[in-house]
């Protein structure tokens, strides 16, 4: 599998364990970018010459790929510059309809990208923000949902999968509770997508957001999916070329969704690269890959359990989590740990992982994170466990 990822193929000594930050790019995605830029590069949407038609078709067919990946319709797919931009889009476009008295529910487990936009919405519109707490095992405390959901709750905006603990949200329970108060449900899928295609219909949610760079695709592109009925009525967020009907000094009319939300020249080659990555992913045997990822994760958790003074954040069970494992080592700072690991070709990240509320809830200031993707193998896990023992020696 590593041979399909040019960077990993070129650096055989590298144990890349930071896919939760950015996954490596698949060669198919890189080739697609290259092919597009050298064979079909033009602006989209308005040109009638052959190159522009090719660019248009490539871009719209990328939309179709993204839709298939989520089991959605193409006209429900908005291309953005990333998950963060997608989440801000919802906070502005959906948020514009909210006012004092309305409530939004988020959780302590959110990445800042699904937390700060709601803090900002609270400042802008005077809504109330409810915060679902974590259980000590890192799972969202869904038992608290009934008391935190109100008739005024308009949106439940939760992570699909924590970028720190790997905890996977019980979506059915969330949707069920949210529907009871008539709230819409947004899932931040940034961490979920690299572990396989998703089904927004089966989940029964309303919004889904993710980034290309976390699913083996180029950076600079992301996806917001929203139910057609919802998208149809939302006001635009960014203004600019392509999202309007008529424009004059008196105002402007809106283009239809999804164009209404794609002001300006979109990331065309990046969307084409994303589609190549998603198409490739859709051809994989995910039940098998998920089992493999879970096995590696279990092996990692087992090994970490045996390291003295090491504490894993969240559950020690591999079955209710994605293969993202963060930990503390008594008396050792994550930066120092990562530095020593780097000397052995182990690429891990230490810090607050843009999840300060989560770290605060777990009583941690910073932690070290190992995240596994489909290209990781048992040797990567073994090297990490070795490396951590070594780091403890070097640093103490």
């Amino acid at each position, binding site marked *: 599998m590593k041979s399909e990822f040019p960077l990993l193929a070129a650096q055989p000594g590298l144990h890349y364990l930071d896919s939760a930050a950015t996954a490596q790019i698949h060669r198919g995605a890189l080739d697609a970018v290259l092919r597009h830029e050298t064979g079909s590069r033009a602006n989209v949407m308005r*040109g009638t010459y052959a190159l522009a038609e090719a660019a248009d078709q490539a871009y719209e067919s990328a939309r179709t790929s993204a839709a298939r990946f989520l089991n959605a319709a193409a006209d429900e797919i908005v291309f953005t510059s990333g998950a963060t931009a997608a989440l801000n889009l919802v906070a502005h476009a959906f948020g514009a309809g909210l006012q004092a008295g309305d409530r939004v529910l988020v959780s302590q487990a959110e990445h800042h990208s699904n937390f700060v936009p709601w803090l900002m919405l609270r400042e802008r519109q005077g809504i109330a923000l409810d915060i679902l707490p974590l259980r000590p095992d890192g799972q969202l405390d869904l038992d608290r949902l009934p008391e935190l959901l109100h008739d005024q709750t308009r949106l439940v905006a939760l992570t699909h999968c924590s970028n720190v603990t790997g905890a996977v949200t019980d979506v059915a329970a969330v949707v069920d509770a949210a529907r009871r108060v008539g709230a819409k449900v947004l899932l931040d899928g940034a961490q979920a997508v690299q572990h396989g295609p998703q089904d927004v219909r089966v989940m029964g949610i309303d919004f889904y957001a993710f980034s290309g760079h976390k699913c083996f695709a180029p950076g600079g592109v992301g996806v917001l999916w929203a139910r057609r009925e919802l998208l149809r009525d939302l006001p635009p967020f960014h203004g600019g070329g392509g999202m309007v*009907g008529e424009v004059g000094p008196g105002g402007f009319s809106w283009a239809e969704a999804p164009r209404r939300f794609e002001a300006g020249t979109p990331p065309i080659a990046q969307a084409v690269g994303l589609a190549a990555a998603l198409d490739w992913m859709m051809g994989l045997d995910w039940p098998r890959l998920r089992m493999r990822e879970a096995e590696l994760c279990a092996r990692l958790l087992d090994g970490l359990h045996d390291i003295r003074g090491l504490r894993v954040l969240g559950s020690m069970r591999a079955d209710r989590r994605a293969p993202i494992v963060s930990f503390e080592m008594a008396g050792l700072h994550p930066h120092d740990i990562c530095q020593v690991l780097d000397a052995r070709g182990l690429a891990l990240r230490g810090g607050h992982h843009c999840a300060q509320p989560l770290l605060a809830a777990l009583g941690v200031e910073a932690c070290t994170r190992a995240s596994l993707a489909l290209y990781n193998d048992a040797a990567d896990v073994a090297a990490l466990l070795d490396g951590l023992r070594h780091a403890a020696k070097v640093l103490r």
Partner: protein
Amino acid sequence: MSGGEELYQQAIKDWAQADHGHGRLDPADAAACADSPLCGDRVRLTLRLDSGRVAALAQETRGCLLCRAAASLLGRRASGMDAAAAASATAALEALLAEGRDAPPAWPELAMFAPARSFRSRHKCVLLPFRALRQALEGVSHREQ
């Protein structure tokens, strides 16, 4: 870079030139305005109806030759159509453009648009007047992207 000129057969130029049904009916029983914000084409249709069928159609069209030829064709041929007929003509035109189907016996003139098949960005130019007619007859709004 291929065969863009075949598009402009004499038939298309003649239909566009003829501009059948140009104008506006006032009063009208139904009306629709379909535009393509991205290319600026616009078709304004006004209709007189007789038990749900077109008794008279007038069109004001701003657009390219393809769009104008299609509008002019409707200006000549729409009489007697009801919503179902408009839907089926539109579907036939869509199938002709997207799937390479032949023009249906009821609409032999649609064949003149066959060369537009390979130019996807132009399909909407041809379709705009037909979509406007459906919109007027079905009373639903439609705006082409």
